[in-house]
Protein backbone atom coordinates (compact mmCIF):
# COMPACT_ATOMS: atom_id res chain seq x y z
CA UNK A 1 0.00 0.00 0.00
CA UNK A 2 1.15 3.53 -0.75
CA UNK A 3 0.07 6.36 1.51
CA UNK A 4 0.79 9.95 0.59
CA UNK A 5 0.04 12.39 3.41
CA UNK A 6 -0.20 16.08 2.61
CA UNK A 7 3.02 16.08 0.58
CA UNK A 8 4.73 19.23 -0.60
CA UNK A 9 7.81 19.15 -2.80
CA UNK A 10 10.09 21.94 -3.90
CA UNK A 11 12.91 21.41 -6.41
CA UNK A 12 16.28 23.01 -5.63
CA UNK A 13 15.58 25.66 -8.31
CA UNK A 14 12.60 26.84 -6.26
CA UNK A 15 9.80 25.33 -8.35
CA UNK A 16 7.08 23.99 -6.07
CA UNK A 17 5.96 20.87 -7.92
CA UNK A 18 3.64 19.37 -5.29
CA UNK A 19 1.38 21.49 -3.12
CA UNK A 20 -0.38 19.34 -0.56
CA UNK A 21 -1.06 15.96 -2.18
CA UNK A 22 -2.85 13.22 -0.21
CA UNK A 23 -3.56 9.86 -1.77
CA UNK A 24 -3.89 6.20 -0.80
CA UNK A 25 -3.23 3.42 -3.28
CA UNK A 26 -4.18 -0.05 -2.08
CA UNK A 27 -2.54 -3.31 -3.07
CA UNK A 28 -3.86 -4.66 -6.35
CA UNK A 29 -5.10 -1.29 -7.57
CA UNK A 30 -4.56 -0.04 -11.11
CA UNK A 31 -4.23 3.73 -11.13
CA UNK A 32 -3.66 6.13 -14.01
CA UNK A 33 -2.24 9.52 -13.07
CA UNK A 34 -3.14 12.09 -15.69
CA UNK A 35 -2.94 15.84 -16.15
CA UNK A 36 -1.24 18.60 -18.08
CA UNK A 37 2.50 18.91 -18.63
CA UNK A 38 4.15 20.22 -15.50
CA UNK A 39 1.25 19.23 -13.22
CA UNK A 40 3.59 17.21 -10.96
CA UNK A 41 2.72 13.68 -12.09
CA UNK A 42 6.28 12.42 -12.53
CA UNK A 43 7.38 14.26 -9.37
CA UNK A 44 4.65 12.48 -7.43
CA UNK A 45 5.49 8.98 -8.64
CA UNK A 46 9.20 9.55 -8.00
CA UNK A 47 8.18 9.77 -4.34
CA UNK A 48 6.83 6.22 -4.46
CA UNK A 49 10.26 4.61 -4.75
CA UNK A 50 12.10 7.20 -2.70
CA UNK A 51 13.88 8.87 -5.65
CA UNK A 52 12.46 12.09 -4.25
CA UNK A 53 11.63 12.78 -0.60
CA UNK A 54 8.90 15.20 0.44
CA UNK A 55 9.85 18.72 1.50
CA UNK A 56 6.85 18.52 3.84
CA UNK A 57 4.44 15.68 4.64
CA UNK A 58 5.29 12.00 4.29
CA UNK A 59 5.04 9.01 1.97
CA UNK A 60 4.65 5.47 3.30
CA UNK A 61 5.23 2.35 1.23
CA UNK A 62 3.84 -0.70 3.05
CA UNK A 63 3.91 1.34 6.24
CA UNK A 64 7.60 2.26 5.95
CA UNK A 65 8.36 5.96 5.56
CA UNK A 66 10.40 6.59 2.40
CA UNK A 67 12.81 8.88 4.25
CA UNK A 68 13.77 5.98 6.53
CA UNK A 69 14.51 3.26 3.96
CA UNK A 70 17.11 3.36 1.22
CA UNK A 71 16.13 3.64 -2.44
CA UNK A 72 17.95 0.34 -2.97
CA UNK A 73 15.64 -1.41 -0.50
CA UNK A 74 12.57 0.19 -1.97
CA UNK A 75 13.64 -0.70 -5.51
CA UNK A 76 13.16 -4.39 -4.83
CA UNK A 77 9.53 -3.70 -4.06
CA UNK A 78 8.83 -0.77 -6.36
CA UNK A 79 9.79 -1.06 -10.04
CA UNK A 80 10.04 2.17 -12.00
CA UNK A 81 10.12 2.56 -15.79
CA UNK A 82 11.13 6.06 -16.88
CA UNK A 83 9.38 8.16 -19.49
CA UNK A 84 12.45 8.29 -21.68
CA UNK A 85 14.07 4.84 -22.07
CA UNK A 86 17.42 6.46 -22.87
CA UNK A 87 17.56 7.59 -19.24
CA UNK A 88 17.78 4.05 -18.03
CA UNK A 89 19.37 1.85 -20.71
CA UNK A 90 23.15 1.40 -20.74
CA UNK A 91 24.12 -2.24 -21.37
CA UNK A 92 25.58 -3.65 -24.57
CA UNK A 93 22.76 -6.08 -25.30
CA UNK A 94 19.07 -6.22 -24.48
CA UNK A 95 19.69 -9.47 -22.64
CA UNK A 96 22.36 -7.94 -20.35
CA UNK A 97 20.13 -4.94 -19.75
CA UNK A 98 17.35 -7.15 -18.43
CA UNK A 99 19.72 -9.33 -16.40
CA UNK A 100 21.42 -6.35 -14.74
CA UNK A 101 18.97 -5.69 -11.91
CA UNK A 102 18.47 -9.41 -11.30
CA UNK A 103 22.22 -9.81 -10.76
CA UNK A 104 22.24 -6.85 -8.39
CA UNK A 105 19.44 -8.35 -6.38
CA UNK A 106 21.51 -11.53 -6.08
CA UNK A 107 19.27 -13.94 -7.98
CA UNK A 108 20.76 -17.32 -8.92
CA UNK A 109 22.16 -17.70 -12.45
CA UNK A 110 19.49 -20.26 -13.46
CA UNK A 111 16.68 -18.02 -12.26
CA UNK A 112 18.20 -15.00 -14.01
CA UNK A 113 18.30 -16.92 -17.27
CA UNK A 114 14.70 -17.96 -16.94
CA UNK A 115 13.45 -14.52 -15.93
CA UNK A 116 15.33 -12.82 -18.79
CA UNK A 117 13.87 -15.24 -21.29
CA UNK A 118 10.40 -14.74 -19.88
CA UNK A 119 10.64 -10.94 -20.05
CA UNK A 120 12.09 -10.94 -23.60
CA UNK A 121 9.29 -13.18 -24.73
CA UNK A 122 6.55 -11.22 -22.97
CA UNK A 123 7.54 -7.99 -24.72
CA UNK A 124 8.29 -9.51 -28.11
CA UNK A 125 12.03 -8.85 -27.87
CA UNK A 126 13.53 -12.35 -28.10
CA UNK A 127 14.91 -11.71 -31.58
CA UNK A 128 16.84 -8.69 -30.22
CA UNK A 129 18.44 -10.29 -27.17
CA UNK A 130 21.98 -10.05 -28.55
CA UNK A 131 21.48 -6.58 -30.01
CA UNK A 132 22.42 -3.27 -28.40
CA UNK A 133 19.33 -1.45 -27.12
CA UNK A 134 20.64 1.63 -28.92
CA UNK A 135 20.27 -0.10 -32.27
CA UNK A 136 16.56 -0.59 -31.62
CA UNK A 137 13.68 1.72 -32.49
CA UNK A 138 12.18 4.13 -29.93
CA UNK A 139 9.22 1.88 -29.25
CA UNK A 140 11.46 -1.17 -28.88
CA UNK A 141 13.82 0.61 -26.48
CA UNK A 142 10.82 1.50 -24.36
CA UNK A 143 9.94 -2.21 -24.22
CA UNK A 144 13.51 -3.17 -23.21
CA UNK A 145 13.25 -0.71 -20.30
CA UNK A 146 9.91 -2.23 -19.35
CA UNK A 147 11.27 -5.78 -19.61
CA UNK A 148 14.25 -4.91 -17.40
CA UNK A 149 11.90 -3.92 -14.59
CA UNK A 150 9.22 -6.58 -15.05
CA UNK A 151 11.95 -9.24 -14.88
CA UNK A 152 12.42 -8.90 -11.12
CA UNK A 153 8.68 -9.04 -10.53
CA UNK A 154 8.25 -6.01 -8.24
CA UNK A 155 5.16 -5.81 -6.09
CA UNK A 156 4.44 -2.26 -7.17
CA UNK A 157 5.02 -1.20 -10.75
CA UNK A 158 5.29 2.42 -11.84
CA UNK A 159 5.23 3.11 -15.56
CA UNK A 160 5.83 6.65 -16.76
CA UNK A 161 4.18 7.00 -20.18
CA UNK A 162 4.31 3.29 -21.06
CA UNK A 163 2.45 3.59 -24.38
CA UNK A 164 4.79 6.08 -26.08
CA UNK A 165 5.93 4.74 -29.43
CA UNK A 166 3.81 1.63 -29.06
CA UNK A 167 1.45 0.43 -31.76
CA UNK A 168 -2.03 -0.82 -31.05
CA UNK A 169 -1.03 -4.46 -30.66
CA UNK A 170 1.71 -3.65 -28.18
CA UNK A 171 -0.71 -1.51 -26.20
CA UNK A 172 -3.20 -4.35 -26.15
CA UNK A 173 -0.49 -6.70 -24.82
CA UNK A 174 0.43 -4.17 -22.16
CA UNK A 175 -3.21 -3.88 -21.15
CA UNK A 176 -3.53 -7.66 -20.84
CA UNK A 177 -0.35 -7.78 -18.79
CA UNK A 178 -1.55 -5.08 -16.39
CA UNK A 179 -4.84 -6.90 -15.91
CA UNK A 180 -2.88 -10.04 -15.11
CA UNK A 181 -0.80 -8.11 -12.54
CA UNK A 182 -4.05 -6.96 -10.99
CA UNK A 183 -5.30 -10.50 -10.49
CA UNK A 184 -1.99 -11.23 -8.71
CA UNK A 185 -2.77 -8.36 -6.30
CA UNK A 186 0.11 -6.31 -7.69
CA UNK A 187 -0.21 -2.56 -7.84
CA UNK A 188 0.22 -0.81 -11.17
CA UNK A 189 0.53 2.95 -11.42
CA UNK A 190 0.83 4.56 -14.82
CA UNK A 191 1.47 8.18 -15.69
CA UNK A 192 -0.03 8.79 -19.07
CA UNK A 193 -1.47 11.20 -21.61
CA UNK A 194 -2.92 8.39 -23.66
CA UNK A 195 -6.63 8.97 -23.16
CA UNK A 196 -7.74 6.20 -25.51
CA UNK A 197 -5.53 3.66 -23.70
CA UNK A 198 -7.01 4.69 -20.35
CA UNK A 199 -10.52 4.47 -21.83
CA UNK A 200 -9.83 0.87 -22.82
CA UNK A 201 -8.42 -0.10 -19.41
CA UNK A 202 -10.92 1.78 -17.23
CA UNK A 203 -8.61 2.11 -14.19
CA UNK A 204 -8.93 4.50 -11.26
CA UNK A 205 -7.93 7.93 -12.58
CA UNK A 206 -6.16 10.57 -10.49
CA UNK A 207 -6.18 13.91 -12.24
CA UNK A 208 -3.55 16.51 -11.36
CA UNK A 209 -3.20 20.19 -12.01
CA UNK A 210 -0.54 22.60 -10.76
CA UNK A 211 0.79 20.31 -8.04
CA UNK A 212 -2.58 19.26 -6.68
CA UNK A 213 -5.07 16.46 -7.21
CA UNK A 214 -8.23 17.87 -8.79
CA UNK A 215 -10.23 14.68 -9.34
CA UNK A 216 -10.01 11.04 -8.34
CA UNK A 217 -12.39 8.29 -9.46
CA UNK A 218 -13.33 5.70 -12.05
CA UNK A 219 -12.05 6.40 -15.57
CA UNK A 220 -15.50 6.49 -17.09
CA UNK A 221 -16.64 9.12 -14.63
CA UNK A 222 -13.54 11.31 -14.83
CA UNK A 223 -12.94 11.04 -18.58
CA UNK A 224 -16.49 12.15 -19.31
CA UNK A 225 -16.42 15.14 -16.97
CA UNK A 226 -15.67 17.94 -19.40
CA UNK A 227 -15.15 20.55 -16.72
CA UNK A 228 -12.34 18.84 -14.83
CA UNK A 229 -10.79 17.51 -18.05
CA UNK A 230 -10.41 20.98 -19.51
CA UNK A 231 -8.79 22.14 -16.27
CA UNK A 232 -6.28 19.31 -16.56
CA UNK A 233 -5.59 19.82 -20.29
CA UNK A 234 -7.07 16.46 -21.25
CA UNK A 235 -9.21 15.81 -24.31
CA UNK A 236 -12.08 13.35 -23.67
CA UNK A 237 -11.89 9.97 -25.46
CA UNK A 238 -13.48 10.02 -28.92
CA UNK A 239 -16.52 8.00 -27.88
CA UNK A 240 -17.25 10.45 -25.05
CA UNK A 241 -16.76 13.37 -27.47
CA UNK A 242 -19.31 11.91 -29.87
CA UNK A 243 -21.88 11.54 -27.10
CA UNK A 244 -21.20 15.06 -25.80
CA UNK A 245 -22.06 16.49 -29.19
CA UNK A 246 -25.60 15.15 -29.08
CA UNK A 247 -26.97 16.64 -25.86
CA UNK A 248 -30.63 16.63 -26.92
CA UNK A 249 -30.65 12.82 -27.08
CA UNK A 250 -29.95 12.68 -23.34
CA UNK A 251 -27.59 9.77 -23.76
CA UNK A 252 -25.87 8.33 -20.68
CA UNK A 253 -22.90 10.52 -19.88
CA UNK A 254 -20.32 8.00 -18.71
CA UNK A 255 -19.66 6.06 -21.92
CA UNK A 256 -16.08 5.65 -23.16
CA UNK A 257 -16.17 2.15 -24.63
CA UNK A 258 -16.92 1.51 -28.32
CA UNK A 259 -19.08 -1.53 -27.66
CA UNK A 260 -21.12 0.13 -24.93
CA UNK A 261 -21.67 3.03 -27.32
CA UNK A 262 -22.78 0.58 -29.99
CA UNK A 263 -25.44 -1.00 -27.70
CA UNK A 264 -26.92 2.37 -26.80
CA UNK A 265 -26.89 3.71 -30.35
CA UNK A 266 -28.40 0.55 -31.81
CA UNK A 267 -31.32 0.81 -29.40
CA UNK A 268 -31.87 4.45 -30.35
CA UNK A 269 -31.53 3.83 -34.07
CA UNK A 270 -33.85 0.84 -34.00
CA UNK A 271 -36.57 2.50 -31.97
CA UNK A 272 -36.22 5.43 -34.33
CA UNK A 273 -36.85 3.21 -37.33
CA UNK A 274 -40.11 1.87 -35.84
Amino acid at each position, binding site marked *: MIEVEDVYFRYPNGVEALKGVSLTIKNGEFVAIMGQNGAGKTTLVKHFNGLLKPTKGRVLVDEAETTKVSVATLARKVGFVFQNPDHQLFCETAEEEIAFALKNFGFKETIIKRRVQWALNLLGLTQYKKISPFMLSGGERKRVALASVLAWNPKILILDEPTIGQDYQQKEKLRQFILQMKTQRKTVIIVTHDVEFVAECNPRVVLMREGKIVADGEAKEILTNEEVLTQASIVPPQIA*QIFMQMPSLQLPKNIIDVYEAREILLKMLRSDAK
Partner: protein
Amino acid sequence: MPVIETKNLTYTYPGGTKPSISDVSIKIKKGEFALITGPSGCGKTTLCRCFNGLIPHFYQGELKGEIKVTGLNILENPIYEMAKHVGLVFQNPENQLFALSVEKDVAFGLENLGVPREEIRKRVNWTLNLTGIYDLRERAPHELSGGQQQRVAIASILAMQPEVMVLDEPTSFLDPLSAKKIFKVIYELNKKLGITVVLVEHRLDLTARYADHIIVMDDGKVVLDGEPREILSSEEARLIGIGIPKATRLYHILKKDGVKLSNTVPLSSDEMANLLKEALKVHD
Protein backbone atom coordinates in the same frame (compact mmCIF):
# COMPACT_ATOMS: atom_id res chain seq x y z
CA MET B 1 5.83 16.66 -59.37
CA PRO B 2 6.30 14.83 -56.09
CA VAL B 3 8.38 16.59 -53.45
CA ILE B 4 9.53 13.24 -52.06
CA GLU B 5 9.98 10.27 -54.32
CA THR B 6 11.63 6.94 -53.54
CA LYS B 7 12.08 3.94 -55.80
CA ASN B 8 12.90 0.52 -54.34
CA LEU B 9 14.65 2.17 -51.43
CA THR B 10 16.40 -0.42 -49.27
CA TYR B 11 18.66 0.36 -46.35
CA THR B 12 20.71 -1.68 -43.88
CA TYR B 13 22.37 -0.07 -40.83
CA PRO B 14 26.09 -0.78 -40.39
CA GLY B 15 26.36 -4.13 -38.67
CA GLY B 16 22.67 -4.85 -39.36
CA THR B 17 21.82 -8.39 -40.38
CA LYS B 18 18.82 -7.42 -42.50
CA PRO B 19 17.49 -4.27 -44.12
CA SER B 20 15.50 -1.91 -41.86
CA ILE B 21 13.52 -0.74 -44.86
CA SER B 22 13.20 -2.66 -48.07
CA ASP B 23 11.86 -1.86 -51.49
CA VAL B 24 10.11 1.31 -50.40
CA SER B 25 8.58 3.15 -53.35
CA ILE B 26 6.49 6.15 -52.40
CA LYS B 27 5.52 9.55 -53.73
CA ILE B 28 4.55 12.48 -51.56
CA LYS B 29 3.18 15.50 -53.38
CA LYS B 30 4.04 19.12 -52.71
CA GLY B 31 1.80 20.64 -50.03
CA GLU B 32 0.53 17.28 -48.86
CA PHE B 33 -0.03 16.29 -45.23
CA ALA B 34 1.22 12.71 -45.20
CA LEU B 35 0.98 10.37 -42.23
CA ILE B 36 3.31 7.41 -41.81
CA THR B 37 2.22 4.75 -39.35
CA GLY B 38 2.75 1.07 -38.58
CA PRO B 39 3.89 -1.25 -35.80
CA SER B 40 6.80 -0.26 -33.58
CA GLY B 41 10.11 -1.20 -35.22
CA CYS B 42 8.66 -1.29 -38.75
CA GLY B 43 11.10 1.25 -40.19
CA LYS B 44 9.24 4.55 -39.87
CA THR B 45 12.09 6.42 -38.19
CA THR B 46 14.62 4.90 -40.59
CA LEU B 47 12.62 6.19 -43.56
CA CYS B 48 12.47 9.69 -41.99
CA ARG B 49 16.25 9.69 -41.64
CA CYS B 50 16.52 9.16 -45.41
CA PHE B 51 14.45 12.25 -46.18
CA ASN B 52 17.13 14.71 -45.05
CA GLY B 53 20.15 12.59 -45.86
CA LEU B 54 21.05 11.54 -42.28
CA ILE B 55 20.90 8.17 -43.98
CA PRO B 56 23.32 7.45 -45.55
CA HIS B 57 25.62 10.44 -44.86
CA PHE B 58 25.59 10.28 -41.04
CA TYR B 59 24.51 6.72 -40.31
CA GLN B 60 26.61 5.19 -43.13
CA GLY B 61 25.35 1.67 -43.87
CA GLU B 62 24.14 0.47 -47.23
CA LEU B 63 21.49 2.37 -49.18
CA LYS B 64 20.12 0.97 -52.42
CA GLY B 65 17.47 2.30 -54.77
CA GLU B 66 16.61 5.90 -55.57
CA ILE B 67 15.50 8.82 -53.45
CA LYS B 68 14.83 12.41 -54.42
CA VAL B 69 13.62 15.07 -52.02
CA THR B 70 12.69 18.56 -53.31
CA GLY B 71 14.19 17.46 -56.61
CA LEU B 72 17.59 16.73 -55.07
CA ASN B 73 19.22 13.35 -55.12
CA ILE B 74 20.03 12.49 -51.50
CA LEU B 75 23.11 10.50 -52.46
CA GLU B 76 24.66 13.47 -54.24
CA ASN B 77 23.76 16.16 -51.70
CA PRO B 78 25.32 16.51 -48.25
CA ILE B 79 23.19 16.96 -45.11
CA TYR B 80 23.89 20.70 -44.89
CA GLU B 81 22.46 21.16 -48.37
CA MET B 82 19.36 19.05 -47.58
CA ALA B 83 18.86 20.94 -44.30
CA LYS B 84 18.00 24.04 -46.35
CA HIS B 85 14.95 22.23 -47.68
CA VAL B 86 13.99 19.61 -45.14
CA GLY B 87 13.46 20.03 -41.40
CA LEU B 88 13.38 16.96 -39.18
CA VAL B 89 11.92 16.88 -35.68
CA PHE B 90 13.48 13.92 -33.89
CA GLN B 91 11.56 11.37 -31.91
CA ASN B 92 13.69 12.08 -28.83
CA PRO B 93 14.01 15.86 -28.36
CA GLU B 94 17.16 15.43 -26.27
CA ASN B 95 18.98 14.21 -29.37
CA GLN B 96 18.31 17.48 -31.11
CA LEU B 97 18.66 20.22 -28.48
CA PHE B 98 22.09 21.43 -27.40
CA ALA B 99 22.18 25.21 -26.87
CA LEU B 100 22.24 26.93 -23.49
CA SER B 101 18.94 28.68 -23.97
CA VAL B 102 15.70 27.87 -25.74
CA GLU B 103 15.95 31.04 -27.80
CA LYS B 104 19.45 30.14 -29.04
CA ASP B 105 18.36 26.64 -29.96
CA VAL B 106 15.47 27.98 -32.00
CA ALA B 107 17.70 30.60 -33.67
CA PHE B 108 20.48 28.15 -34.52
CA GLY B 109 19.01 26.80 -37.75
CA LEU B 110 18.26 30.30 -39.02
CA GLU B 111 21.79 31.50 -38.22
CA ASN B 112 23.19 28.64 -40.25
CA LEU B 113 20.94 29.48 -43.17
CA GLY B 114 22.39 33.01 -43.06
CA VAL B 115 19.06 34.71 -42.37
CA PRO B 116 19.50 38.42 -41.45
CA ARG B 117 19.56 39.21 -37.73
CA GLU B 118 16.29 41.16 -37.62
CA GLU B 119 14.47 38.44 -39.51
CA ILE B 120 15.87 35.82 -37.11
CA ARG B 121 14.54 37.77 -34.15
CA LYS B 122 11.12 38.06 -35.76
CA ARG B 123 10.89 34.41 -36.68
CA VAL B 124 12.13 33.19 -33.30
CA ASN B 125 9.50 35.23 -31.48
CA TRP B 126 6.81 34.14 -33.91
CA THR B 127 7.56 30.46 -33.48
CA LEU B 128 8.04 30.67 -29.68
CA ASN B 129 4.56 32.15 -29.42
CA LEU B 130 3.09 29.64 -31.83
CA THR B 131 4.36 26.71 -29.77
CA GLY B 132 3.53 28.33 -26.43
CA ILE B 133 7.08 28.54 -25.06
CA TYR B 134 7.77 32.27 -25.22
CA ASP B 135 8.05 32.35 -21.42
CA LEU B 136 10.69 29.63 -21.51
CA ARG B 137 12.98 31.45 -23.96
CA GLU B 138 15.76 32.08 -21.44
CA ARG B 139 15.65 28.62 -19.87
CA ALA B 140 18.16 25.87 -20.66
CA PRO B 141 16.57 23.19 -22.87
CA HIS B 142 18.16 20.32 -20.95
CA GLU B 143 16.46 21.47 -17.74
CA LEU B 144 12.98 21.41 -19.27
CA SER B 145 10.43 18.62 -19.04
CA GLY B 146 10.03 16.15 -21.91
CA GLY B 147 6.92 17.91 -23.17
CA GLN B 148 8.56 21.33 -23.08
CA GLN B 149 11.62 19.99 -24.90
CA GLN B 150 9.39 18.67 -27.64
CA ARG B 151 7.90 22.13 -28.10
CA VAL B 152 11.41 23.57 -28.43
CA ALA B 153 12.37 20.93 -31.00
CA ILE B 154 9.25 21.69 -33.04
CA ALA B 155 9.78 25.45 -32.73
CA SER B 156 13.36 25.20 -33.98
CA ILE B 157 12.18 23.48 -37.16
CA LEU B 158 9.11 25.69 -37.66
CA ALA B 159 11.32 28.79 -37.45
CA MET B 160 13.17 27.72 -40.60
CA GLN B 161 9.92 27.29 -42.54
CA PRO B 162 11.42 24.51 -44.62
CA GLU B 163 9.74 23.23 -47.80
CA VAL B 164 9.32 19.86 -46.14
CA MET B 165 8.77 19.21 -42.44
CA VAL B 166 9.34 15.69 -41.22
CA LEU B 167 8.08 15.04 -37.68
CA ASP B 168 8.78 11.76 -35.90
CA GLU B 169 6.20 11.33 -33.11
CA PRO B 170 6.69 14.98 -32.21
CA THR B 171 4.16 15.20 -29.37
CA SER B 172 4.57 11.91 -27.53
CA PHE B 173 5.44 13.64 -24.23
CA LEU B 174 2.76 16.32 -24.49
CA ASP B 175 -0.61 16.30 -22.75
CA PRO B 176 -3.57 15.74 -25.11
CA LEU B 177 -4.75 19.32 -25.27
CA SER B 178 -1.24 20.63 -25.97
CA ALA B 179 -0.71 17.89 -28.57
CA LYS B 180 -3.97 18.84 -30.23
CA LYS B 181 -2.93 22.51 -30.36
CA ILE B 182 0.48 21.67 -31.85
CA PHE B 183 -1.06 19.48 -34.56
CA LYS B 184 -3.43 22.32 -35.39
CA VAL B 185 -0.50 24.74 -35.72
CA ILE B 186 1.27 22.29 -38.04
CA TYR B 187 -1.89 21.80 -40.07
CA GLU B 188 -2.40 25.54 -40.44
CA LEU B 189 1.19 26.06 -41.63
CA ASN B 190 0.69 23.21 -44.06
CA LYS B 191 -2.39 24.92 -45.51
CA LYS B 192 -1.24 28.57 -45.31
CA LEU B 193 2.41 28.29 -46.30
CA GLY B 194 2.10 25.11 -48.37
CA ILE B 195 4.77 23.34 -46.31
CA THR B 196 4.72 19.64 -47.07
CA VAL B 197 4.26 17.70 -43.82
CA VAL B 198 5.39 14.13 -43.22
CA LEU B 199 4.24 12.99 -39.80
CA VAL B 200 5.07 9.70 -38.10
CA GLU B 201 2.35 8.84 -35.57
CA HIS B 202 0.63 6.01 -33.74
CA ARG B 203 -2.10 8.22 -32.31
CA LEU B 204 -4.37 8.44 -35.31
CA ASP B 205 -7.27 9.62 -33.17
CA LEU B 206 -5.46 12.96 -32.92
CA THR B 207 -4.02 13.18 -36.41
CA ALA B 208 -5.95 11.20 -39.05
CA ARG B 209 -8.32 14.12 -39.64
CA TYR B 210 -5.50 16.30 -40.96
CA ALA B 211 -3.98 13.78 -43.37
CA ASP B 212 -4.39 13.78 -47.16
CA HIS B 213 -2.37 10.63 -47.49
CA ILE B 214 -1.55 7.68 -45.22
CA ILE B 215 1.36 5.29 -45.65
CA VAL B 216 1.31 2.13 -43.53
CA MET B 217 4.56 0.24 -43.03
CA ASP B 218 5.13 -3.21 -41.62
CA ASP B 219 8.42 -5.02 -41.24
CA GLY B 220 10.37 -2.52 -43.34
CA LYS B 221 7.91 -2.48 -46.23
CA VAL B 222 5.12 -0.20 -47.34
CA VAL B 223 1.97 -2.29 -47.10
CA LEU B 224 -0.76 0.30 -47.59
CA ASP B 225 -0.55 3.67 -49.33
CA GLY B 226 -3.48 5.90 -50.16
CA GLU B 227 -6.41 7.99 -49.06
CA PRO B 228 -6.99 8.05 -45.26
CA ARG B 229 -10.70 7.13 -45.29
CA GLU B 230 -10.01 4.15 -47.49
CA ILE B 231 -6.95 2.95 -45.59
CA LEU B 232 -8.56 3.25 -42.17
CA SER B 233 -11.55 1.26 -43.38
CA SER B 234 -9.49 -1.61 -44.70
CA GLU B 235 -9.37 -4.91 -42.92
CA GLU B 236 -5.57 -5.03 -43.50
CA ALA B 237 -5.02 -1.88 -41.46
CA ARG B 238 -6.88 -3.38 -38.52
CA LEU B 239 -5.01 -6.67 -38.79
CA ILE B 240 -1.58 -5.01 -38.88
CA GLY B 241 -2.66 -3.46 -35.60
CA ILE B 242 -2.59 0.25 -36.34
CA GLY B 243 -4.66 2.37 -33.96
CA ILE B 244 -7.82 3.06 -35.92
CA PRO B 245 -9.57 6.13 -34.40
CA LYS B 246 -12.46 5.05 -32.18
CA ALA B 247 -14.89 7.22 -34.16
CA THR B 248 -13.96 5.29 -37.32
CA ARG B 249 -14.26 1.96 -35.46
CA LEU B 250 -17.72 2.83 -34.15
CA TYR B 251 -18.83 3.76 -37.67
CA HIS B 252 -17.74 0.40 -39.07
CA ILE B 253 -19.27 -1.57 -36.21
CA LEU B 254 -22.63 0.16 -36.67
CA LYS B 255 -22.46 -0.31 -40.44
CA LYS B 256 -21.89 -4.03 -39.90
CA ASP B 257 -24.97 -4.07 -37.69
CA GLY B 258 -26.91 -2.80 -40.68
CA VAL B 259 -27.30 0.82 -39.56
CA LYS B 260 -27.74 3.20 -42.45
CA LEU B 261 -25.04 5.85 -42.31
CA SER B 262 -23.63 8.02 -45.08
CA ASN B 263 -20.77 6.47 -47.01
CA THR B 264 -18.17 9.05 -46.02
CA VAL B 265 -16.05 7.30 -43.39
CA PRO B 266 -15.53 9.60 -40.36
CA LEU B 267 -11.98 10.27 -39.14
CA SER B 268 -12.86 12.36 -36.09
CA SER B 269 -15.48 12.47 -33.37
CA ASP B 270 -17.03 15.59 -34.95
CA GLU B 271 -17.55 13.83 -38.24
CA MET B 272 -19.01 10.76 -36.52
CA ALA B 273 -21.33 12.86 -34.35
CA ASN B 274 -22.63 14.60 -37.48
CA LEU B 275 -23.33 11.29 -39.20
CA LEU B 276 -25.24 10.07 -36.15
CA LYS B 277 -27.22 13.29 -35.93
CA GLU B 278 -28.18 12.86 -39.57
CA ALA B 279 -29.27 9.26 -38.95
CA LEU B 280 -31.19 10.17 -35.80
CA LYS B 281 -32.52 13.42 -37.23
CA VAL B 282 -31.44 15.54 -34.28
CA HIS B 283 -30.38 19.15 -34.48
CA ASP B 284 -27.85 19.98 -31.76
